[in-house]
């Protein structure tokens, strides 16, 4: 040690060079050790004694189902311990001719399209059962057979219309309460802000639950549950950090964050709705659209609550409405064009993180807006607002749950 320090004292540049070379060596050594271990594992196969003659573990996840004039197409993702071979495919308990693209064994994590020239029946249910070479079977239910919507300007337009109806319109309508709400006093303010927190709390629970549900449908390789937790936490922390760069957000900034959180949630919702229509898993009556609209109107009120003491320009309202409601349109498009449960789960969990951040910020805003601190959180108006928010969302959700 003494020697080293003497050299360091004598020539700091040389010492630094040596130090970095030593560091490099300590980087290379563990990598080399890992490489050797892998080579040994592959070459000597010391784990062979664990081989008990059992067939390989096989999992197959159905990610997309497309029904069209020339039959049924399904996208499957393999997740076995070895590449999987699809031997035969049954539709409704009958072996059916099929083609696989790309052909051959499907390696772990890879996908393949299976095409079945099957005369499916509009509006009825079908079941696809894939039999692998080991005789394992993987079943997929098509709850209601409907053709995949054609992708042309008209269909994109009608989807956009639906997105606007369930996303943008209710938010905009909610915002038109703004002039009426401007005159409210302190209690009214407490009520409106906590109403916002309440509705966000409902969305948080709803989005998280749905994200976990979708994560469960995704291939195991995506580790859906962990992905939901991590994506939500990351989006929460990131938005907190961004939001607090110039102090705690209030006014327009806070409204923007609320709109962003709601927008991300609507994106996830849009993805799910779009996918549901594309696969025929759900139908939509006008009543359902009305339900979605009533459900989302409170979102507009929530976004405008932090703006009650400001006088933002009209375009700001338009932008906020677009930010909160617009993603529903984008979500519908993406969901009906290309869908996989893991991406919807990811979108919903990012949305959940964003919503949590907004809840924290709105609560913080409520506490400091007139210097009452935590007592503001327990004021009767606050509790009433919170309860009303959750209850309203729960009540209107009854209209849209099927």
């Amino acid at each position, binding site marked *: 040690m003494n020697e080293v320090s003497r050299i360091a004292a004598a020539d700091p540049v040389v010492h630094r060079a040596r130090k970095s070379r030593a560091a490099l060596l300590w980087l290379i050594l563990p990598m080399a050790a890992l490489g050797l271990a892998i080579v040994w594992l592959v070459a000597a196969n010391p784990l062979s004694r664990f081989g008990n003659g059992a067939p390989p573990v096989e999992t197959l996840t159905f990610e997309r189902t497309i029904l*069209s*004039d*020339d*039959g049924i197409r399904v996208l499957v993702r393999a997740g076995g311990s070895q590449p999987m*071979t*699809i*031997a*035969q*495919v*049954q539709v409704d*308990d*009958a*072996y*059916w*001719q*099929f083609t696989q693209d790309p052909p051959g064994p499907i390696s772990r994590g890879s996908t393949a399209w299976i095409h*079945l*020239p*099957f*005369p499916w029946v*509009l*509006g009825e*249910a079908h079941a696809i059962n894939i*039999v*692998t*070479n*080991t*005789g*394992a*079977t993987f079943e997929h239910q098509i*709850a*209601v057979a*409907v*053709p995949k*919507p*054609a992708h042309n300007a*008209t*269909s994109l*337009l*009608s989807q956009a*219309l*639906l997105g606007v*109806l369930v996303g943008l319109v209710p938010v905009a309508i909610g915002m038109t309460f703004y002039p009426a709400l401007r005159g409210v006093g302190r209690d009214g303010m407490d009520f409106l802000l906590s109403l916002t927190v309440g509705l966000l709390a409902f969305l948080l629970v709803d989005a998280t639950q749905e994200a976990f549900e979708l994560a469960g449908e995704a291939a195991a390789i995506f580790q859906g549950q962990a992905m939901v937790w991590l994506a939500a936490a990351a989006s929460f922390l990131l938005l907190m950090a961004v939001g607090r760069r110039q102090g705690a957000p209030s006014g327009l900034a806070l409204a923007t964050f609320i709109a962003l959180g709601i927008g991300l949630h609507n994106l996830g919702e849009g993805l799910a709705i779009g996918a549901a*229509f594309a696969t*025929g898993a*759900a*139908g*939509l*009556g*006008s*009543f*359902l*659209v*009305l339900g979605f609209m009533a459900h989302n109107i409170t979102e507009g009120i929530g976004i405008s609550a932090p703006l009650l003491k400001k006088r933002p320009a009209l375009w700001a309202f338009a932008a906020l409405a677009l930010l909160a409601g617009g993603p529903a349109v984008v979500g519908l498009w993406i969901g009906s064009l290309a869908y996989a449960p893991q991406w919807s789960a990811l979108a919903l969990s990012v949305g959940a993180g964003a919503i949590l951040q907004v809840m924290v910020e709105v609560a913080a805003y409520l506490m400091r807006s007139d210097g009452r601190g935590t007592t503001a959180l327990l004021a009767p108006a606050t509790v009433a607002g919170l309860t009303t928010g959750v209850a309203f969302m729960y009540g209107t959700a009854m209209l849209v749950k*099927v």
Partner: protein
Amino acid sequence: MTKWGPFEITRRGLLWGGVTAAGGSVIAASGSSVAQSDHLADHLADHSAHTAASPLPGHGSAHGAMITVGEVDETRNGFETAKLLTEWDTGTVSRLPDGRVLRTFEVEGVDKEIEIAPGIMFPAWTYNGRVPGPSLRATEGDRLRIVFRNLGSHPHSMHFHGIHAARMDGVPGAGLIDPGDEFVYEFDARPFGCHLYHCHALPLKRHIQKGMYGLFVIDPDPERHPELTDIARSRLLGAPENAEWQEFAMVMNGFDTNFDNENEVYAVNTVAHAYMKRPIRIVRDRPVRIYLANVVEFDPINSFHLHGNFFDYFDQGTTLTPTLKTVDLITQCQAQRGIIEFSFKDHEPGLYMFHPHQSEFTELGWSGMFDVVEAIA
């Protein structure tokens, strides 16, 4: 009810949505309904065109595209479905001191992975490496000696449907042997008929459905049936009267490949669609006799239906006159079997289908064709 393109779905409990649809659909329907209902109509039109205009080549076309894809490697399996139909194991014949025929069969229990449908491997337990096991054939009154060696990984036995002593029954304690052991079943061949044998180790369901079964046919001895000698002689393998008959051994079986107590594959003689892809040639003016047994597990009943013709049926084959006359469908419960006799001599040549009339079994592999021809070159 107002149709709203693909969104108008009644199955999923949206009926209540439909009730208000008439009044409320104005909001949403304006932009989309026309385009989507047009699309739907297009789809339906295209669709019917597609199903009508795309017959697939080959014999499978009778059911459109409803058939397994690919071919089974019969060389690897070690048995050919075409030969299973006509191969009879008549054993080794010798004479007992009293002049009676002693017929000795040798059977080995072997574990073997077999391909039961193209690409689907099944870890079978077999007799002599084939499923179904060898079709044993003897004559009424023979002394039978069946030497069974268990080379498999589990205890097995051969339980014969026939008349024999309890000691020879092939149940636990009477001829059920451990791996590596040998047992000789000995009894007289009676009664004549179409019988079967199977493993009677426990659990029975598993041992049978894994592949341990086979036909056990006892031909009638014409001398014992003076009133119906000609009929008896036509049943006696090797007799000149038997030679004109086109005889086939068929065992209706099924395979539960994922062990959920339901069959994924049904067949006659193991390989799904084997006789669909390669029809069984029969000469038009010669009579046909099928020794048929049902060993399907999990489903209580199987059946046999012949297209374009009717047949006589001898339940269990223990009579020389039909037990059912002029039928085109018979049913067999588990382990039931019988003899089917028919002729196509008044028919025009062509492909005549046969299959169970449980459509589910047909669609999961148990179906075949007779290719009726004027003469076999």
